[in-house]
């Protein structure tokens, strides 16, 4: 199951969607808004996406993960719009009979999501400036922002 939403991510609901008496292992990853990036303070974030393609890419990620690992449940939720500090921007939850598959799938999903899904983050810095984050552009930018 995949979801793009402007509302806060409902983590208990995400977990409930993957839990099952067939699955002995659940792995959840949450990406949350950090206060400090490469020494600079963030006040808030905005996420924009290309909705139709982002949904398609997220659905492809779920399909690929289910093909690579034996998963019982797989949920990917990405927040869009305005986020305050500490809020979750992304949740990835997978369940499996075996914990190795759950960890491997969860890590692969978030790693690959960050590489291929057309979603962009704008840092609204505490000093009042705002920057779209495009890893590698401009070429002389701080490299730490994409982690």
């Amino acid at each position: 199951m995949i979801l793009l939403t402007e509302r806060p991510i409902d983590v208990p609901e995400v977990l409930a969607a993957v839990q099952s008496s067939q699955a002995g292992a659940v792995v959840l990853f949450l990406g949350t808004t950090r206060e400090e990036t490469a020494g600079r303070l963030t006040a808030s974030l905005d996420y924009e996406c290309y909705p139709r393609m982002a949904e398609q890419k997220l659905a492809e990620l779920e399909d690929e993960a289910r093909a690579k690992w034996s998963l019982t449940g797989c949920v990917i939720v990405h927040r869009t719009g305005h986020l305050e500090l500490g809020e979750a921007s992304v949740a990835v939850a997978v369940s499996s009979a075996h914990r190795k598959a759950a960890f491997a799938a969860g890590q692969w999903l978030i790693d690959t999501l960050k590489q291929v899904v057309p979603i962009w983050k704008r840092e609204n810095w505490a000093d009042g400036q705002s920057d779209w984050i495009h890893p590698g552009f401009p070429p002389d930018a701080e490299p730490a922002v994409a982690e």
Partner: protein
Amino acid sequence: MQIEVKLFALARDLAGRKSLEFDLPPPVTVADLRRAIAYSTPALAPLLAHMVLAVDQQYATDQTQLSEGCEVACIPPVSGG
């Protein structure tokens, strides 16, 4: 051939608009469209080299052929997650 190109994030800010419209004689490849974008919107040129174009929600190469009514978008380096 009428082609609309969606813009996002910094690409939209640099161009000052959400999309670009072109009318190009077929056949048109992604490489042709890139040249048209760079020519029509010089403000996008530095970022354009770092962008991938998507055709019908799939990442395309310079050789990808565009067809009538396809959906095209400029995808700057992504930063979701």
